[in-house]
């Protein structure tokens, strides 16, 4: 399913730490390795503060990693700067969470969606009108919207403008940071459908960040679950509801309200708070909230082990299992 040839971005061991005071550092992202493939969707799921936004900000180049490297078609782009950085931005575009804040309020829609093209001298000013119409049609909006301002559009329409702007440069990768969380469910569905339709037509790679596991599992080819800066499980979207193994993924699944759930059963929830990222415990980051916590979890941090093809789990329970099988 994931061909080496289709690999576009490879993030290798990305770590980002912020110095809070002289002897305290906050590790927002700890040794994260994830890949973006052509025509595939990578979903990143986790609670607030789990480092998912930090990770993609590094992948897009908005933030410099403390260590680790980002490979774009096999070329290291971690240290790019100046003109090189500017040109490389063409290939990776981003759509933001709040469509109300992502645009300049005094720019017309046509100026917004054509700005990236003008920046790279791909069109001339007098071509703006026709190009804007073309892009608007792509995101299923009437061409007359070109003359509007962002404030006289609904949230869903604005998010479509966000998609049009991101796709104007025909990037190979687009990153969506919680793009549906400010929208109503019915609008959310149409936005997701549009995105998938565009993916099919243009073979783009999508990075989709969300806290809504139920939404992401509908269309992501691969899902990475993050917890306190660490990736704890990577598996295919289709298998989330049946094959998730990590206790944290299980807990997330248990606390989702679902229309097909058993309404007579009480909802299960973790009763503890997520620990502060400033004092992540040694060993497994999830140890304090885990019901299967063992001695080894407090001492040693689990690596990501492959328990079946394309399914990786960072949990000591599965390490032991592997070990036994090897014997």
């Amino acid at each position, binding site marked *: 399913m994931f061909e080496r040839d289709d690999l576009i971005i490879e993030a290798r061991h990305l770590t980002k730490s912020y110095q809070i005071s002289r002897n305290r550092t906050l590790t927002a992202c700890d040794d994260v390795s994830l890949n973006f493939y052509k025509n595939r969707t990578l979903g990143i799921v986790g*609670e607030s503060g789990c480092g998912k936004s930090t990770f993609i900000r590094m992948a897009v180049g908005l933030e410099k990693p403390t260590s680790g490297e980002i490979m774009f078609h096999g070329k290291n782009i971690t240290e790019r700067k100046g003109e090189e950085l500017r040109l490389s931005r063409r290939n990776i575009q981003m759509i933001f969470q709040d469509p109300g804040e992502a645009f300049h309020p005094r720019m017309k829609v046509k100026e917004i969606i054509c700005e990236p093209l003008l920046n790279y001298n791909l069109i001339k000013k007098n071509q703006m009108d026709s190009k804007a119409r073309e892009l608007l049609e792509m995101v299923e909006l009437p061409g007359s919207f070109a003359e509007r301002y962002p404030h006289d559009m609904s949230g869903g329409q604005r998010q479509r403008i966000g998609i049009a702007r991101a796709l104007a440069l025909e990037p190979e990768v687009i990153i969506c940071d919680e793009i549906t969380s400010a929208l*109503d469910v*019915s609008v959310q569905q149409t936005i997701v459908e549009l995105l998938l339709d565009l993916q099919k037509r243009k073979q783009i790679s999508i990075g989709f960040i969300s806290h809504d596991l139920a939404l992401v599992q509908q269309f992501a080819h691969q899902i990475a679950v993050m917890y306190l800066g660490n990736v704890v499980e990577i598996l295919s979207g289709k298998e989330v509801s*049946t094959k998730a193994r990590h206790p944290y993924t299980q807990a997330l*699944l248990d606390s989702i309200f679902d229309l097909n*759930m058993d309404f007579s059963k009480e909802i299960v929830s973790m009763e503890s708070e997520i620990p502060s990222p400033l004092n992540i415990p040694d060993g497994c980051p999830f140890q304090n909230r885990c019901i299967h916590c063992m001695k080894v979890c407090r001492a040693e941090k689990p690596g990501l082990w492959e328990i079946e093809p394309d399914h990786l789990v960072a949990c000591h329970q599965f390490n032991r299992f592997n070990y036994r099988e090897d014997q």
Partner: protein
Amino acid sequence: MLEIQNISVNYNKSGKPAVENFSLAVKQGEICCLVGESGSGKTSVIRAVMGNLSRQGRVTRGDIFFEGDSLLSYTANDWRKIYGTEISMIFQDSGAMLNPIRTIGSQFVEYIRAHGTYTRKEAWEKGVQMLEHACLPDGEHIMKSYPFQLSGGMKQRVGIAFSMVFKPRLLLADEPTSALDITMQAQMIRQMMKLREEYGTSIIMITHNLALAAYMSDHIVVMRDGKIADSGDRDHILHHSQAEYTKKLLSAVPSLGGDNYV
């Protein structure tokens, strides 16, 4: 216990009403959820019950009865007697309700003493007890904290603790979980269900999460453009609804192991 009869809410005299002909009856111990898209008038309904419609908002038609009394005829003084003690409210973001430069304790004590006759010390103890009841262990510590020292989930639980001090008979909740992570959300919902079991509190809750509404409520009202599009119990809404709009909403909700696009 609460009866809303054909109310209409207008924000300006000439314009279209935000809520039109809305009726709802809530019994003691009943949980009712209002669902609908943004702009469908859910918040206007709750605010009308609470008597604090924003800006020029007014109830132009109909009436609201709480325990047989018309709430619309209440004066500011009458309101003060029932706020907090009979009817209380949880907001979407309890952090915004708290004063950022005062400790939780000082605000909690003020709140308790404003509505009941307690000494400072009694009020403090009551506060600690309520916080612990709302699943915030170490209430003393929370009382001495400032709002910025607490996480979003903790602040929301402080909001619950505030609203439950006087065991109100009616609790209004405006999207209390939408700013929270899903694990926190499940915790909050369990807590609210506990209130009903322990005190027989009736709850009217606004949510845009249909599955959540189905899980917790005895009665679901689907709103659209200020009108009731559909209403009924869980079974009716999920399985036997005739309303096109309800079906459309249901089909848009992502479901685990349900439809898959790839």
